[in-house]
């Protein structure tokens, strides 16, 4: 099933995130927040508020954890290899 995303959005793995807050500080639209919940490692992880992402990629590039942040850009088609 191919699915075209109308809006870009970030996906943050709550279990991998170490809660360093770099992405929250780097987001130009302030659409990332630190969750009140804890993950299995005991970190307050970062999460997307659900709308407002412009797909700038800042959170991806500032995140020190290779697999914590994935950003789907506007023209992403699921199943496609970038």
């Amino acid at each position, binding site marked *: 099933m191919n699915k075209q995303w109308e809006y870009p959005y970030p996906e943050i793995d709550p279990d*991998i995130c170490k809660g*360093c807050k770099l992405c929250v500080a*780097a987001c130009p639209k302030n659409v990332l927040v630190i969750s009140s919940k804890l993950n299995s490692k005991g970190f307050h992880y970062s999460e997307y508020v659900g709308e407002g992402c412009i797909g700038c990629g800042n959170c991806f*590039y*500032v*995140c020190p954890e290779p697999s914590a942040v994935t950003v789907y850009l506007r*023209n992403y088609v699921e199943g496609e290899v970038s």
Partner: protein
Amino acid sequence: MAQKTVLRKPKGFMDVYKHKPGTEKDRTHYCPGCGHGILHKLIAEALEDFAVIDKTILISPVGCSVFAYYYFDTGNFQAAHGRAPAVGTAVSRANPDSIVISYQGDGDLAAIGGNNILQAANRGENMVVFFVNNAIYGMTGGQMAPTTLEGQKTTTTPYGRNPLSDGYPMQMCELLNQLTAPVYITRTSLHDMANIRKTRQAVRKAIRYASEKKGFSFVEVLSMCPSGWKMDAVRAQQWIKEKMIPRFPLMVLRDNAENTGPIERPVPVLDPEEVKKVLGYDTFETTGFKKRPGTMFRKVALRVAGFGGQGIMSTGIALANVGMKYGYNVSWLPSYGPEMRGGTANCSVKIQEDSIGAAECTEPNMVIAMNQPSLEKFEKLLVPDGILIYNSTLIDVEPSRKDIRVCPVPITGIADELGDTRVQSMVSVGAFAAVTGMFDPEEIKSLMPTLFAGKSEKVRKLNEEAVQKGYDHVKRNF
């Protein structure tokens, strides 16, 4: 390259960090907010985008990034502390088509590995060095590093770094910029998004230069160490901006790649036949003379000693070469001071039927002493009944031991009569041949073209004469 539609973990990383021990094979070991992860990601992304993952070899250092080989899906080495550029040199020379990345921290690169990086840069090795500068030893618990700022408090500088006792922060980019060979030297930072993107460009440029074999690239990255600096990651970024950048200004110090072609290094000679030819041994047969029956020795352990310049070493080499020609096992071991002429010198020579263990003659059965101090020193070492040949021109004191056989030969005098004191060594060789009966003087003379390869006919003739004189003197008098 097509426009990216998704930003996800680059293929330069392993899917699962299978070499990492423990259960957390899906995440790095770095502290929250560590700059290493960011730079790792930029490198892995560039390797994927340029499709060079399979030809990249990454050298991990000692430091927090010691485990970089858990994460990168490239060829990996882990080098001893500070030695990544040396290991990288070997990897690059052995695999000239590979992309070699040396990933180092400030303690590793600027302290213990300071000379390694200078020499590798000076040779212009085809590699990329990523230098993560966080002004502290992170892994070991926040001690002062060479790049620690003036006044910065660390566990080993609790009152702040004082330049009068601890020196000043070392600016490695500026240091390397004094060298001729590097093609690309730059300093970037991870303190905000604009600079992370600049770092990304620098990383990509350096890796591209390496794939084009442009030579040595050095990318210094100012990076945060929230744990070592005892602050949160966002505050650490501010700290880079406020404290580090004034001391470590961000700039491209050099970018010469456009004027530099691909580096083609000379291919080393590794063929044994070729090496023999270079040393002049390609025409030298190691056997050929028949051993002479009835020689006194099955085993010669000889010490030749005297002033440097008296032909001590050449006597030893000549005897070993002649012995080899007779089919004996031989060894020659020189020992001399730092000065080439005028100091004391001696050498050990072994010529024997059996195979040789140690090359040094600690208990010689024969000594050739060219001067008084050598006589005193080596006479003592002789085994009982051993033979002492000494240079009676320069030594006028009788040897003190009575349990040895002595054979005074005016070696310097004979050489002087021939018109050149430099032929002393061949007089000694002649005397040795006469005393031991192992070598025939005519056969020694036939080796002159090898022993004096590249010398004139006159020199060879003179040396042949010297051998004969030494031989005759011993035969006549003893």
